[in-house]
């Protein structure tokens, strides 16, 4: 049974990562990742919506007729996004101002309805919620990575504006890596986001290839056990 959790984590964080593999939710991803904190903020908001919508969709999966499931999923997701937006407006006001239009845009993030349709509507609540968490974290980690990359290159800082997300004490978290008189524009503007995203995808594929090769080299010695392992995992 616990294998399911391990599989969900592996799928969400790496193998089927919403941003790097499924390439879903690119619009908010590319638009807000000019700093680490903006990326983290939107990532956490998306994760929250994913967990909420996955849980709800899974809870009602037996009540919802097949023909009208999509409008109902959309309604559930839109509801959660609006609630998240209100909560951010109330409790992280500065971040809300910074992320602005991109919070309502979470609705259009296909990763969310994709998970509702592909997983949550067919699986029990605890798995669906866990899947939401892992998919969200996978998405968030890409947002944070890309944000950090662009922030270091563009502004020469890391975690600037952490106080907007965590409160005043967090301003000590900001690291100044180097000081530039004028920002490196390419990294901050949208083209930088595309370039950074491309590099991240390439890096992931390179890592995957290397791991595959390592396994391929080990494989011949284990030919006997291989058959058994495969049947087990099925």
């Amino acid at each position, binding site marked *: 049974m616990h294998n399911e959790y391990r599989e969900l984590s592996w799928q969400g964080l790496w193998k089927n990562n919403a941003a790097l593999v499924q390439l879903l939710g690119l619009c908010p991803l590319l638009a807000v990742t*000019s700093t680490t904190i903006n990326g983290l903020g939107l990532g956490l908001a998306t994760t929250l919506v994913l967990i909420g919508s996955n849980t709800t969709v899974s809870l*009602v999966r037996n*009540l*919802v*007729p097949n*023909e*009208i499931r999509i*409008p*109902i999923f959309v*309604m*559930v997701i*839109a*509801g959660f996004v*609006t*609630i998240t937006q*209100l*909560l951010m*407006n*109330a*409790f992280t*006001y500065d971040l809300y101002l910074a992320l602005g239009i991109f919070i309502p845009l979470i609705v259009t993030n296909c990763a969310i309805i994709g998970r509702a349709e592909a997983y949550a509507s067919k699986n029990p609540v605890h798995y669906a919620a866990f899947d939401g968490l892992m998919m969200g974290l996978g998405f968030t980690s890409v947002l944070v990575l890309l944000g950090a990359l662009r922030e270091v290159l*563009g502004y020469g800082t890391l975690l600037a504006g952490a106080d907007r997300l965590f409160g005043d004490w967090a301003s000590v978290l900001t690291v100044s890596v180097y000081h530039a008189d*004028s*920002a*490196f*524009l390419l990294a*901050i*503007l949208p083209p930088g986001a595309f370039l950074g995203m491309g590099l991240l995808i390439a890096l992931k594929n390179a890592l995957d290839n290397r791991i595959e090769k390592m396994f391929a080299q080990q494989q011949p010695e284990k030919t006997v056990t291989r058959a058994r392992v495969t049947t087990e995992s099925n």
Partner: protein
Amino acid sequence: MIRNIGKNGAILAAFAILTTLLIVLTSLATDSTITQQQQSKLRQTLNTVIPANLHENDIAANCVIVTDAQLLGPSANRRIYRASVNGEYVAMAIEATAPDGYSGDIDLLVGTRLDGTVTGVRVLSHRETPGLGDKIDASISDWILAFNGKRYSDESRSRWAVKKDGGQFDQFTGATITPRAVVSAVARAVQFGQQNQSELLQAENNCALDTDHEDNAHAQ
């Protein structure tokens, strides 16, 4: 078939009611916090454009609402906040818009003494290019502080321009349009304050803490 449609319709309606209900509940629960956040943000900005020694009153709760497309920018219902010491008005904070920024409107809050000396300017919202025009934002560069203590009058009008145009304010490397727009918008705002001073100071308070003001804040 018909029965099926009816059933599905009912289920859809039930979900619509349920989600709406949830949103309404959240909205009710967060409403006062959101208003409070907006007010405290406004207070914070007002306090940076009008220094503490120039006001004893709650500036955010004392304003006149005016419209002047020429001097304050196209949007209607701009607020002029009034600051008083010992019951006498000594300064104003004027909402203004520079409609000629590099990409869209730049909303400003301009603090000025009654004699036309600027006490502080802050950019409330803008969409200028990151790394170039966004240096007008106080969180990015100190440029906006150059307005502090500058006095606007009809004689000094020609000095209210960027250096490239023969004025006293720096432009940015690679971005002249943005600072040019901000400088002239600030000048126009102060000019508006000077021209209409007596009416502005005598007018009734439109911002006394009431629900009407909150509604307006939401509408923005």
